[in-house]
């Protein structure tokens, strides 16, 4: 998987938008990830230097929070909701079917870098469970048989 070389100016401006406040490390990392679809190593180094925080602590935070990925991610981010309401309505079976079709487990990216599969613990749209969110688009009342057409609609 190819790593991205982040633009130093871009990182600098993200830091500036938070006044280089070390308390804002998590939102800063989120903005970096929104830019590069993952957290490149050089970005973590620059963020640490800009905030006066040791790299080991930046890395700690980056590896602690589930929102962050330290590896490059696929073009399409699939989030299967495993919240209680969705679970009770069979979300586990939907996840199984997606894993089966894509040949990856949750947390992994397909070899062709097309999809990254993640699970999320409740997106707060419980009436429509089971829910699968792809690139911010919500698909509700999912079943195993709806997986194939859903995946096929993404290039």
């Amino acid at each position, binding site marked *: 998987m190819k790593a991205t070389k982040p633009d130093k100016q871009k990182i600098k401006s993200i830091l500036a938008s938070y006044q280089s406040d*070390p*308390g*804002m*490390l*998590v*939102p800063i*990392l*989120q903005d970096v990830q929104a830019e590069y679809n993952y957290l490149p190593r050089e970005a973590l180094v620059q963020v640490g230097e800009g*905030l006066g*925080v040791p790299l080991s*602590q930046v890395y*700690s*935070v980056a590896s*602690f*929070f*589930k*929102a*962050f990925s330290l590896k490059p991610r696929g073009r399409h981010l699939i989030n299967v909701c*495993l*919240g*209680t*309401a*969705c*679970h*009770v*309505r*069979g979300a586990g*079976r939907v996840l*199984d*079917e997606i894993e*089966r079709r894509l040949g990856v487990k949750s947390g992994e990216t397909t070899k062709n870098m097309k999809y990254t599969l993640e699970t*999320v*613990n*409740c*997106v*707060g*749209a*419980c*009436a*429509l*469970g089971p*829910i699968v969110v792809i690139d*911010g688009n*919500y*698909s*509700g009342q999912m*079943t*195993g*048989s709806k997986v194939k057409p859903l995946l096929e609609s993404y290039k």
Partner: protein
Amino acid sequence: MAKKQQTSKRLNSVAALEALRKAIVASRDPDKPCITVCGGTGCLALGARDVIAGFKREIEKGGLEGKVSLKITGCPGFCEKGPLVVIKPEDILYQQVKAGDAAEIISETVKGNIVDRLLYVDPNTGKKTTYESDVPFYKKQKRLLLGSNSSIDPTVIEDYLALGGYAALGRALSGMTPEGIIDEVKKSGLRGRGGGGFPTGAKWETCRKAEGEKRYVICNCDEGDPGAFMDRSLMEGNPHSVLEGMIIGAYAVGSHEGYIYVRNEYPLAVKNAEIAIEQAEEYGLLGRNILGSGFDFSVKISRGGGAFVCGESTALMASLEGKVGEPRAKYVHTVEKGLWEQPTNLNNVETWANVPLIIKDGAGRYAKIGSEGSKGTKIFSLVGKINNTGLIEVPMGITLREIIYGIGGGIPEGKKFKAVQTGGPSGGCIPDSFLDLPVDFDQLDKAGSMMGSGGMIIMDENSCMVDIARYFINFLEGESCGKCLPCREGLKRMSQILTGITEGRGKDGDIDLLERLSATLVDCSLCALGSTAPNPVLTTLRYFRDEYEAHIKDKRCPAGVCKALVTYSIDEEKCPGCGLCAKACPVEAITDMGKKKPAILDKEKCIKCGACYDVCNLGAVIRK
């Protein structure tokens, strides 16, 4: 760069605020029909964006801006029937609206008519209800907090002002002392809505008295309980109600800096909160010299990073300090030493939203609602195996039966109620013997569960209680911060034992070991994630022990859920040979033998996904 000259909107006094409010109300025609469409995450997921676009298109096409308004609002709660449209001022409710319905709704509304086919039909009586308040789902609710959602566009502060918003703040800043405000909140009996149920007034009082150079107020919008989305809807739909509460609270405890911590999975809530802060600042309702009172208070928004543990106050504060979300011992409370070691008052979204109600109408009126030990209303997310899924707001003390059957419309497909899970992963499963339990903090505790933040997951006869316990322990295992030994290692072992039981590897002694491990987690965990983690296991053992024993002794899952203990087969007598199951099977384990010949299921190939069982309407697929 030329600076744009802007006329300042700043309100320099409470009188100016009231004058502005009068002007806003006067500028609005109360009789002009307004089509309000729910723009909350739930309805958006059901296609509300297309519905909104449809309305915009049709209004523009017909040049009808003068005849009818369109407002995109917050969540009215009846998620099961979304996308929801409410026609004001009559409050006519249309459900499951599609983009293609826009033209008809507009034309009929302009004429003063109703679109019959889009009205809600009561499944029990077969009758249609026209008005929102007649819908059985809403009848037993008391929507003090959520009621204004369908009248407010959260990105338009003037909507909030028109309904009386910030009047409480005005009252607080003009003639009430901080101590007086704290007294009022104490008298109201308000208890924290995030799960702890701690008396809010007492918390504010301790914070005010605590020593420290600076003090902070925080709004906890990290709503991590899976299945709970009350805070999301409040923050998305009426962020000003939360903000107003925070400003009043900040004034009461003497804080000038606040944070709203929103979980990462709620992008719309973050967006609407940011807009609300900007607009409040423009009007001088937030920031420096609020309403000319001399009181300064500003609020920043911080996002979570996807960690349930950050709903715990000390972990949340660690995250706000740029550290990992590890809790610390609370022998010294966060009101004394919290964020950056300063006195910090943290409250949940719903708690903050209750404050303006108390200050505006007085504690006495507020305290009339609810039960003896739990005053006011509570928002619950009613989800799972229930007909009317959605958000409900009810007075404390209403019974579970009234919620599940009176408001929730009972269990779908005529199935039998089995249990309700309250309080999220820290709570417990309550069986049908408790259906007449009044819902409030103390009663739920007595039954072995807890109120928690308000998630209510309904389960029916097809829910396996051992699987539910396993689900919660797995969830918590993934969310444990890993700092303390009992939680990190204990949850791992509980997960191994429970998974073993659901996979047919349960053995004698497993239940005893689960109970002993649970006792250690309860006694020794560093924070409430660990110490409440055993609750789902302990309550399911208490009320559904027979299910555990069936799994362990008989290697059987009575509810038919645990894959390893369930087999699928075709009932040769019932199967008409329609081939639907064969089509549904993702691994071609079923062979369609043609009409009138029963299909053949290859047990070796079967992955037990249940697709065939779901698709067969004749009960010809057996699952045991």
